[in-house]
Every structure is written in structure tokens, then in C-alpha cells.
């Protein structure tokens, strides 16, 4: 999305001169003896669409609430524009939040909900009117201005909540699982709508989600969290292609994991011994790995080529029999059992009609991949 050829690439995180909009410095949050966020360091840049991704209870909401000002940090500081925000109460922060439950005021109309924050800002009365109309137009709810929140649909309510939190043109907008309650179709439409709005308003968005597809779709960068810690922060493609740990690899999409012992071959090339009677897997790693290190080799199913005869031009090749075939419409997943009992998934695009499919159950096939198709993970 962002690596669009016509535009210059948006990547302030790789520019050492760029100053972040938000900086978490060794931030921890404890509830009693329970640590919800643990020693977290993170920079988020202006105009980013930043996604926090992780399983339920990993501390995503807590992180947002610290940004919004509803929770104080137990340790560490959060800087907004270089200023420590700890002493600033929520009503004085240039941060707005879209709540998971939308939190629309039931006694106010849609228009009054949107105007609520503006009325508490120095904005002139006549300008407020204009701004509300602009917001209603942005979320396409002009006809519903006079309705009460309970008189509109769930999707519309969600757009009111978005308009309300955008109305004050905050430096930073926090969205806590904003689309959690929507069905799949509406959800996808809204994701594109969100990206569109984010681009038009130039606001920095931080979105919380536990849906990895959503994070990959909307975000400029994704932070994967686990038990109050950041496991990896990177662009969606790098998170997908080069996960830094088994946790991230497993969390995002489907992956084949093979465990074994490392032995260096040359420079960045390594061999992974993983089973008796199987050839070692050849892969690459930028890390210096010592002989005998226990590692996982991770490779996406679509990176495995499936063929009847072993190809000669690929670094890795294993053979097995097809155990199962899952037809997913646009693609099929083949589950192949190797002679040592390990199963691997290979995904193939269905660009031919199903009747012309080459392989079927119990066929002997070869799975092959190049030495750079997968990653070697040490944790």
C-alpha cells in the first residue's frame, strides 16, 4: 500500500534523523503484583498507521489507556512530541480515543455526540457547526445527524464514534479494536475507509486488534505483543516474511516449523539437521549461529513448490505422500507427510480448473524450496 511506486516511500522509522511523535521509554504497568506491560520501548512516528497486534489479555488496551491518560505508568515515561505526558490529564492531551464499546452518549443525538468535544474547545460556535457537518460528511452520516445512538445500526454507530474522536483533529488517534463487532464484509469495507480517512486527515493512528489480517491490511507498521512485551515491531511484509521468533511466525498466517541443530556451512549459510535419513535443510541467517544451536526453520506454505519429480535447481528438496488436500477456492493447501512422520503444508494457487489438478491423495510428491525462502529462528 505504502510502497506505491508513484509516491516516495514512507518510512520515518528507518530515518535516524526523524523524531518520533510518541516515545515509550522503558514503560511498565503493574496492577498489584500482575505486570500488564513490561519494560516496553517503542517509537511511533507522525502520520503512521500503527497496529498493536496480540492475543487477548496481552496488554494492548492497557498501552492505549496509558496514552489516553486513563492509566498512569508504573515505571518509565511516555513522551509525546518530546514532552513527558505523565502530568497531563486526559482532557488536556492532544490524543483522542475511539473506545472498544464506542461509548456514544445515549442522551445526545449523533450531531451532538460529534460536537461534544468541539464545544469544550476554544472553537467558535459557527465553526463547530461547520466542523460537525464536515465530520458527518466524512463518515457519510449526513441524514442521521438528528438520530439518537440507539436509533442507528452498529456500523453507523461505529462511524459516529470515529467521527467524534476525529472531530477535534487530534495529533494522535487511538482505536481500540474499532471493528471488533462488525461482520467480515462490513469490516473489510471499513478498514479501507479507515485507511482513506487516515490518509486524508494526516492523523497518526494507533489501532489495537487481535486480527492479524486487519493489522496487515491497514498498518504501516505492526507491533506484535505477547504478555506485556513487544516481540517484533516491523512493516507488515517484514513481519510476514522475516519473523524474528517462532511466536511471531506462528501468530501471523500459516507456517511450517521444523526443529533441528545448526551447523555453519559458509558465511551466512547454514545447514539444519532435523531428522535421521533426511537431507539437512539449507538456509541463510544474518545472525552468527554456533555449531549445534537448537533452531527452528520456518517457511510459509506458499514458498514450497510441489512437483512429481525432484527438481535439480533447488537447494532443498524432500519427498512424501499427500495426506490431505484443503480446497480454499483461490488456492489449495496440500498436507504432505514425509517418511519420518513430519507433515508440511504447501499452498498452490488454483489457476487451473479443479478437474485438471495434477495431484491427488496418496500421490508421491517432492517439496522443494530455495535456500532463502525460509528463515532460521533461534527463539
Amino acid at each position: 500500500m505504502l510502497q506505491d511506486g508513484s509516491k516516495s516511500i514512507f518510512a520515518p522509522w528507518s530515518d535516524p534523523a526523524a523524531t518520533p511523535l510518541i516515545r515509550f521509554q522503558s514503560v511498565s504497568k503493574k496492577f498489584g503484583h500482575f505486570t500488564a506491560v513490561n519494560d516496553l520501548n517503542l517509537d511511533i512516528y507522525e502520520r503512521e498507521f500503527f497496529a498493536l497486534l496480540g492475543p487477548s489479555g496481552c496488554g494492548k488496551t492497557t498501552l492505549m489507556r496509558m496514552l489516553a491518560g486513563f492509566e498512569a505508568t508504573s515505571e518509565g515515561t511516555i513522551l509525546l512530541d518530546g514532552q513527558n505526558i505523565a502530568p497531563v490529564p486526559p482532557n488536556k492531551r492532544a490524543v483522542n480515543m475511539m473506545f472498544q464499546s464506542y461509548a456514544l452518549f445515549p442522551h445526545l443525538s449523533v450531531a451532538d455526540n460529534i460536537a461534544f468535544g468541539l464545544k469544550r474547545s476554544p472553537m467558535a460556535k459557527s465553526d463547530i457547526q461547520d466542523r460537525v457537518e464536515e465530520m458527518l460528511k466524512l463518515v457519510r452520516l449526513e441524514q442521521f445527524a438528528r438520530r439518537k445512538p440507539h436509533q442507528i445500526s452498529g456500523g453507523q454507530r461505529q462511524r459516529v464514534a470515529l467521527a467524534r474522536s476525529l472531530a477535534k483533529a487530534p495529533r494522535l488517534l487511538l482505536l481500540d479494536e474499532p471493528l471488533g463487532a462488525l461482520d467480515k464484509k462490513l469490516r473489510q469495507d471499513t478498514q479501507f475507509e479507515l485507511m482513506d480517512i487516515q490518509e486524508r486527515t494526516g492523523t497518526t493512528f494507533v489501532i489495537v486488534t487481535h486480527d492479524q489480517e486487519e493489522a496487515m491490511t491497514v498498518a504501516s507498521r505492526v507491533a506484535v505483543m505477547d504478555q506485556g512485551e513487544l516481540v517484533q515491531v516491523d512493516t507488515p511484509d517484514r513481519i510476514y516474511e522475516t519473523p524474528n521468533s517462532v511466536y511471531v511466525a506462528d501468530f501471523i498466517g500459516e507456517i511450517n516449523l521444523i526443529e533441528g541443530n545448526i551447523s555453519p556451512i559458509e558465511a551466512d549459510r547454514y545447514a539444519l539437521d532435523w531428522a535421521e535419513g533426511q537431507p539437512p535443510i539449507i538456509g541463510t541467517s544474518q545472525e552468527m549461529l554456533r555449531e549445534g544451536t537448537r533452531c527452528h526453520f520456518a517457511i510459509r506454505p506458499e514458498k514450497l513448490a510441489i512437483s512429481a519429480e525432484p527438481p535439480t535447481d533447488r537447494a532443498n528438496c524432500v519427498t512424501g505422500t499427500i495426506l490431505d488436500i484443503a480446497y480454499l477456492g483461490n488456492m489449495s493447501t496440500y498436507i504432505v507427510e514425509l517418511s519420518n512422520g513430519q507433515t508440511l503444508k504447501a499452498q498452490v494457487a488454483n489457476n487451473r480448473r479443479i478437474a485438471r489438478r495434477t495431484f491427488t491423495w496418496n500421490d508421491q510428491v517432492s517439496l522443494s524450496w530455495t535456500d532463502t525462502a525460509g528463515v532460521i529462528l533461534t527463539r
Partner: protein
Amino acid sequence: MNRRFSLFNATSLTLGFAFLYLPMVILIIFSFNASKLVAVWGGFSTRWYGELIQNEAFLDAAWVTLRVALLSSTFAAVLGTMAAYVMVRGGRFFGRTLFSGMIYAPLVMPEVITGLSLLLLFIAIGLDRGIMTIVLAHTTFSMCYVSVVVSSRLVTFDRSLEEAALDLGCTPFDAFRSVTLPNIAPAVISGWLLAFTLSLDDLVIASFTAGPSSTTLPIKIFSSVRLGVSPEINALSTLMIGVVTIGVVVASLVSKRAIARQQKDEQEARRT
């Protein structure tokens, strides 16, 4: 089918209601008695209501009662709401359990004790007994009723609405005034009505805290009855029953309907 309204149920219902309401029904009937003799029916008449309107002493007492009830229920509504808010929203603070227990204590405290202790307090601080002392006393015992009603509404009130208000630039007080209060208003109103009716019919606490110039209606009735029951008293009591009934019915209707409606709205707002 028959099960639902058996003979047994019918009997117990009749007995129960008779037990509760027969005395009042008799009182109401005899307030329309033409005869001056309390126990003899002399035909229908509204004569005693007419005489009641002429009776200065009763009218004065009624006026005192009304002012006391209006003032004390208003104070109780404000204080009770504040207490409820602190207990439900205040988070954990030192002595919270003790505090909430103490707020509800007057609910079970014998009125004689409440009255007596207030009397001692007023004497100790040298406050002359009059309307103001009754107002203070009534506020004291009725604010706990308000706080019970309001806190039961507050616990079901979505906290994130208040956070959203803060997030949009409200000070905590502004958030309470413009978001919380409009949404808990039905509970506050029904608490106010409850306090109002409690104040109207209180005899015991008022007797302890009233001064010579500030006789409330219940005190007036009680003292005249000691000189013998007059049909005029019956008429007055009937009017009071009417006012209290209306107050209680309106209070429960307001709270039931409005709370049910708002909870439905909130649920719908949460669902999609």
C-alpha cells in the same frame, strides 16, 4: 391453568391486603362521614374537608411539612448522589467499606435513636430548634435512601462513557454534569421523591427535632388525636395518604421505566 390462581392464593392475597389496607379504607370512608361521631355513619358528605381548609393550625402545619419535605429531599438528593458516586466510582480508598456501611446504617437504625442523637447534637451546638433542624434531620436519614437508589443505577452505567467525556476535553466535574447526571437523572428523581414522601410522613424524628413554632402535620395530627379522633383528622389523613401514594407510585414508575429504557439503549448501543 387453575393452578395459577388457586383458592389458597386468593385467600392469602385477600387476607394480606385486608390486613394492610382495611384500616386505611375505613379511615378514608369515615372522612366522608356527615356525622360528627366517629363510629356512626351519618351519610356521605365532604363537610370535614371544607372545615379543614378553614383550620389555620392545620394549614400552618401543612405548610411547614411541605417546606421541610422540599428542602430536605433536595439536600438528600444532592448529598445522596454524591455519596453514591464516590462509593461506586471512587475506586478503592482507605476506609471505603466502613464508609459504605455507615451510609446505609440509618436504614436500619431505630428512628428514636436517630431522633434522640440529633436532638442531643442540636442542643450541644446550640442550634435553636425550628424548621432548619427538622430539615437537617430529615436530610440525614433520607439521603441513604437516595444513595441506595442512585448507586444501583451507577453500577450498571457504562464507565467508558465518562472516560470518553474526559477524553473529549471535559474536566471530571463537567463529565459528571454533562454525561453521568443526564443518564442517572431518573434514579436521582426517584430518590428525591422517595426522600420527599419519607419526610412528609415522619413523626418520630420530627418530634425530637421540631421547635414550638415548627409543628409538622404528623406531629399536629398525633397531638390532636390524643384529645380524641375528629372527622377532620380523618379528612386530613386521607389527603396525606393520597399525596404519599402519588409520590411513591410516581417514584417507582419514573425509576423503573427510565432505568429500563436506558439500559436497553445502552445494550443496543453496545450490540451491533
